[in-house]
């Protein structure tokens, strides 16, 4: 049973580039969350999906951030025109529909914007 898989593990981008971060949740997990974790800080909520529906995107910091989960499984977080302040670890978590209290986190993608 594989856990939540995120790719790439590390991404270096030049300021202004677009990046796409991928999350493969645990099979059968309906709920999917994205978080941003700045260095030395706790995870900050970005967005939440239930199946393919994005039910909460209140944490996305700007319209440069976009997330999708078109088939209710794999999700992609896209950041357009990256800025230095976007440098962080992006964490993905998934959970079962009837056990939403238990989130399983991936190891994250460390994004560095130069």
């Amino acid at each position, binding site marked *: 049973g594989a856990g939540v898989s995120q790719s790439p593990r590390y991404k270096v981008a030049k300021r202004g580039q677009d990046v796409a971060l991928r999350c493969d949740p645990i099979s059968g997990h309906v709920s999917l969350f994205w978080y941003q974790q700045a260095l030395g800080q*706790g995870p900050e*909520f970005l967005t*939440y999906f239930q199946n393919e529906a994005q039910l909460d995107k209140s944490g996305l910091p700007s319209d440069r951030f976009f997330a999708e989960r078109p088939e209710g499984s794999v999700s992609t977080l896209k950041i357009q025109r990256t800025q230095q302040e976007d440098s962080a670890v992006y964490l993905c978590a998934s959970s079962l529909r009837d056990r*939403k*209290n238990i989130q399983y986190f991936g*190891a*994250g993608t460390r994004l560095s914007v130069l």
Partner: protein
Amino acid sequence: QQQVKQSPQSLIVQKGGISIINCAYENTAFDYFPWYQQFPGKGPALLIAIRPDVSEKKEGRFTISFNKSAKQFSLHIMDSQPGDSATYFCAATYNFNKFYFGSGTKLNVKP
């Protein structure tokens, strides 16, 4: 505005000692309070959680104490071991769609 405030930022404890991490919240709608453990290069992992209808929950060496009137909760790690050295996060939610995390406590248990 930070919804969940966590202290201390870092903690050094001798092996066998008790580690205590504190969190405070403002939103009385929160009804689920988990603690996560994170090792370097890994994602957070759920450690233990509590609902506000109980004042204490114990699982092995880990205990959550909850004070609803004070809007505070804490994690106690009994008989701390070097393997417990990690960063600990408290969190809170009221709908399980959005979790609010504290800023983290880096615990170092010295042999």
